[in-house]
């Protein structure tokens, strides 16, 4: 069954490039150039994966992902960054993400078409995982010990490993 993938970047050429990369996969693709459009699309469509650029006009990809996750808590995501802040290394972006949302994959911009397709496949192949269960765990962590919510990402990874 084809999945539904939401691509978010503020530059049309980049967006079209990613769309071209993913077209051969046969998944349904949605393109958004602003945070607002992305959130609207996520409201209207059963999005499985969001591919987000870290820098998105006035917002950051993390903020947009947060907003989307409020609506679709089980969405998986790929964050792509061109590192525009010199004090923001890939590690610190990862740390930032861990604090705020559970991003599944992080890719460096520019990303090759094959890498992007592989990333999508990796996320989709884990579809059998009991996401409901995981989502509950994330929720528990958030309620009982918000500072521990970051660990949910780690838990998820262990969870995924276990389920292969």
């Amino acid at each position: 069954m084809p999945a539904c993938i939401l691509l978010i970047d503020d530059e049309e050429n980049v967006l079209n490039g990613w769309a071209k990369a993913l077209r051969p996969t046969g998944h349904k693709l949605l393109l958004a150039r602003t945070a607002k459009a992305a959130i609207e699309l996520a409201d209207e469509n059963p999005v499985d994966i969001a591919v987000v650029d870290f820098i998105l006009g006035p917002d950051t990809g993390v903020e947009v992902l947060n907003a989307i996750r409020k609506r679709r808590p089980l969405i998986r995501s790929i964050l792509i960054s061109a590192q525009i802040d010199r004090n923001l290394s890939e590690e610190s972006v990862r740390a930032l993400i861990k604090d705020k949302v559970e991003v599944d994959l992080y890719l460096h911009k520019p990303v090759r078409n094959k890498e992007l397709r592989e990333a999508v496949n990796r996320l989709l192949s884990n579809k059998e995982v009991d996401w409901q269960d995981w989502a509950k765990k994330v929720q528990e962590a958030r309620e009982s010990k918000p500072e521990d919510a970051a660990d949910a990402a780690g838990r998820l990874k262990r969870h995924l490993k276990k389920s292969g």
Partner: protein
Amino acid sequence: MANSKEYLQFDVSANLQKLVGEELVTNEEMAVIELVKNAYDSGARSVTIAVQPETAREPAYIEIRDDGPGMSLEEFRRIFMFAGYSERDEAAATATRVPTGEKGIGRFAADRLGSKLELTTKKSGEVDALRVRFNWTAFRDKKKRFSEIKIPYERVRRADLAKETSGTILLINGLRTIWSRAKARSTRDSIAHLLNPFNRPDDFNIEFTVAGMPELSGPVQQAPPENQDFDLRFRVSEDGKSLYRRFSTPTSKERDWSPITTKANLSRLGGLRGKLLYYISNPRKNAKGLPWGIQVYRDGFRLQPFGSPLEPWLRLTEKRAKRAGHAPLVPSRLFGFVEVSRLNQPGIRDITSRQGLMETEDFHQMIGILKEQTDDLTKAILEEISKPRWRETGREQSINIERSKVQTLGDLSIGISHEIRQPLQSILSEAGAIEDRLDELKIEDPQVRESLATIDDGVRRIDETLTFIQEFAKGDLDSIEHFDLAEVVRKTCRICSSQAKTQGITVNTTIPDSQMVTTNKNMVERVLINILRNGLEAIEQTRDYGEGEIFVRLVRDVTEHIVTVTDNGGGIPKELRPKIFTTFATKKTGGLGYGLSHSQTIIKAHGGKIAFETNEGKGTTFTVHLRDVNG
């Protein structure tokens, strides 16, 4: 013989509209500002300016929408169609808001933006809106009289203007210029600078959106500057009898207002207030993007062109020139905010054209106060910077030069990284799309494959170069830690020893158990890795497998920590030695010739230095001298 029963009457050519609308309003930014002010004066609480640049599908337009009370046909006739008339003069004294406009020509600013204006306005409670279509070209006929021009109007019902709402929408078509990103940005900035950041009206919001430019779209806000070194505030008492001041310098803070003398006549300046903020060094982020110079705000709105850097109304730049090389007052570090009110200072007003300032008596008295205050400020600055703590020693000076180099590179690398990686992404995606297409068509063409591989390789190299530059430029210069240098040197050797192993190079070390230092840890790591990698490369180029050796030593001097890295590579050729710390001096192929130069820069920025000793054919020793930044 004069006959008192007969009169002559003036009439006006339709062309007057052009003179007023197009030529009196300096530029598009000013035109937008005039229209925003009009919305404010009408009583609107919010105004939205939406710019649609031209696209393949849609022509460009600008829409300015406010939620003011709107106008009935009757009011429209009486107010809008009566050029040069403003009810705001009478309204000024009683309105809750002091109107910003008074000339009654702001409505023609739309002409400056585009050749057509479709104005839709509706009062609350009315069902239909009034729509009027202006085609400014009709006014260009010099032979026609102003009153001969016919403007069509109609009644329309609009879903976005429901019965209980009111407002005015200006839709401007046939734009006179192309709205590029740069123009949109500078217009957004002008609007942001329109309101006094220290005292903005809390019941008026401005939103500016540009289709396709999300980074320029959203509510327009302006934060006030902060962390100023000098803070001079003055105010004229309401009765216009005395002048008070509160003046803080880096070494003395005044908490209370005290009366001061002035030669200016204060009688018509009652209630006038101002603050002059000054930074000893480049204010950078502290200025929050505000234009420098002294701005005058009337009832919260900036008066043009006071304080525009190109309009030397206080002759601040001349002051600087006279004292070249010894300028205590650098105009670009001065941020002034003068507040006047139309009610108290009717003579201090803006003009919409570029013809200069309204040189009224009030204006001259205000200038008098400002000159006295900037002179006092200048004296205080001069006194302050002559104190020993501002006098830089030679070492501090060179540290500051190196710091600014790192800063510049950092700033540059931010822009470069984003601007280059976006098109790189397109190139990579499109090359990938060609490859996918070949696969789909089951075409195996070695030539095309090779070209694609070359593109991929080129993109990868550009990307790696960007990462390299960024790695060096990143990190906060001021992030100072107290850490174990021995541990860092050991860790760096570990990182490089795996690479050394594959080349059969031995890494020997003499490092104490612990040696604490206070400096920038990140920087030390980067520089050491760079020097070690250089050593490995030098060996690789000249020695066989198993012959290479690198020796790393950490010792302590009275004032310095010294790390030496000795390799038994080929040494540095004579002709390269003087240039070794210069950017792009390299013999390596595929290298940037950048690492050592930048290592030297950032080590110097922290008060240390890098030296080397080389013996052609035998090897090179690099010595890194580090100091405690507090030492």
